[in-house]
């Protein structure tokens, strides 16, 4: 039974990872990161259910808290970048390399 959950988690994680790597839009990349976090959450909860323990569920709560905080900071950064550059392309945000 757990297999299906894990397959789904892996599929979601890979979609997220590929999304981060190939999409230029910062917002989409951001959503992909969220997708990867949620894939990990799904795996944690599935294992917790499988082992009949709460450890994984507790861990997934922590992940959600961190993700919420990350969304706050990350979206603020993306908005301010958009305000100054009129673009949310992550390829354009390479000032530190220059």
């Amino acid at each position, binding site marked *: 039974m757990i297999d299906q959950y894990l397959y789904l988690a892996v599929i979601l994680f890979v979609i997220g990872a590929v999304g981060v790597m190939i999409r230029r839009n910062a917002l989409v990349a951001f959503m992909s990161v969220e997708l990867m976090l949620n894939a990990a959450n799904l795996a944690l909860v599935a294992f917790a259910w499988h082992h009949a323990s709460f450890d994984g569920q507790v861990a997934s709560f922590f992940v959600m808290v961190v993700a919420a905080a990350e969304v706050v900071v990350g979206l603020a950064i993306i908005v301010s970048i958009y305000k100054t550059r009129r673009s949310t392309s992550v*390829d354009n945000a*390479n000032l530190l390399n220059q």
Partner: protein
Amino acid sequence: MIPLETIDPVAATGLFSYAWLMIALPALGAFVLLGFGRYVEKSGPYLAVATIGGSFVVAMALFVQMLAAPVDQRAVSVQLYTWFTTGTWQLDVGLLVDQLSILFALLITGVGGLIHVYSLGYMAHDERKRRFFGYLNLFVAAMLTLVLADNYLVLFVGWEGVGLASYLLIGFWQYKPSAAAAAKKAFVMNRVGDLGMVLAISAMLAQFGSSAFIDVNHGAEHLAPGWTTAIGLLLLLGACGKSAQVPLQAWLLDAMEGPTPVSALIHAATMVTAGVYLVVRSHAIFDLTADARLAVVIVGTVTLLAGAWIGCSKDDIKKVLAGSTMSQIGYMMLAAGIGPAGYAFAIFHLLTHGAFKANMFLGAGSVMHGMNDDVDMRHYGALAKYLPITFWTFACGYLAIIGFPLTAGFFSKDHIIEAAFGQSALVGTLALLGAGVTAFYMTRLMLMTFGGKKRWLDGVHPHESPAVMTVPLIVLAALSLVAGAVMNWWIQEWLEPAAGNHAHEVELLPTPIGWLTMLVVAAGVFVGWWVFGRKPIPAVAPQGNVLAVAGRNELYGNAVNDTLVVKPVLGVSRAAVAADAKAFDGFVNLLANALGGLSVGGRRVQNGYVRSYALTMVLGVLLVGVVLILGLGA
């Protein structure tokens, strides 16, 4: 040889406790002139003259009081303050005013004062006159510190001060590269001598636990003979540097680059006399070591002949006089090296030489003043009529230096030659020969400058110098004539307690050696006239024989220095530079280049694209995962 017991100094009372004023006045003058530049631009030179005048008055007052005091009360020690204390050593700063140092103080402030006055005229049109007088004051203050100190360490402070002041003054016209180089040369060669001084003082501190003259005088007899000889030779090295004795003589002729009053000051009143003073002051050491005394005699004899030789062949009037100074200081060294018999004669000749050499240098300055600062005697001639005061005063100096009967040099040089014959027939003969050569080159100088026909360059109109320059000349000329006779019967006895010499009976009528000296001098004058007086002097120097060419090249002293010291040192430093550049820098650069190359590679990874970083992270995670899985499997 048992040295006479020297009398210990008594503590200072009354006027003597103000002896420090002698040093403080010119030091203050130097401070004001150099420190408050613009405010004393006009008045500064007069202030400088006034401070030296004040010093001279103090010295004279002390001298008179000393004359009145009984013999065992004459040497006075003035304790000023403690310099520093470290471990068991306590170093006090104090002055020793005794029969020897007061004579020096009088010479320095007296002749130095006259030179200051003369400089008012000589440097009247120099823009940096104020600075010049500040340096002169510094020079005098340093020299007074040197002769009045009561221990070798304070003496060394003055010794270095003299070196500094001479550097500043020789290079006074520093926009001339030759003057700047001459100043540097004097400074560097003096450093070689200073090394000897430092080692000698260190040896004294190690052996006696003190560098005070009184401790050294008392402790010297208990010292191992090896140590006394070592200290004596080291002191001699120091004396050679300051007094321009062979082998450290090369700086003196170049030092003529400075203004003429500076040459007079260096050659007559200060600087070169310091070496003679040092040897006489250290008589307790030299009395006990025949080897070091012999070295002093050899140095003195070689220098007196070398200086005279150089004096014979130079056409530059100041360089002739410089060679003559070397030669006369050689006489003094010779006398000082002979030991107890000669100390007083060395100081006697030093004092008379101070008068007549200052006279002649200032006279040469007066001639240059009239001849548009030309120093080449081949452009002079027939100046006696145009510069009468300069001529007559110079003539007095001339008579004094060749030892014309009853002039200053007659008494003082005769004694040295006699003492030299007492040492050995060879040294005596060489000293006698030196007297003849002195007469020859001085006659040459007189004939080329004041006699013969005009050989002036175009546009030269000789004129007598102003009174501010001629009055010092007249005073010094008078001293050149009478100083010998005044001191002849007095100085030996006077110096006996301080220098530990044995007084000899001196007669007015010359001894056989005295007659012989006069004969040799007369021969020297005659040869000088025979060569330079009978026919016109060519305006361009003739080819000259081997002797003249060697003399013109200063006996190849510079070449010797170049070959023995400068070239090896340059070679070693070039090799060191090459090793540094090739081996050490090469290795370090290689390392740096390798790291730099690595960084260039590393930088490529940082391309600034977020997505490529994400890819790297994913690959990294995969790698870690694979390793973990494989590792767990194993």
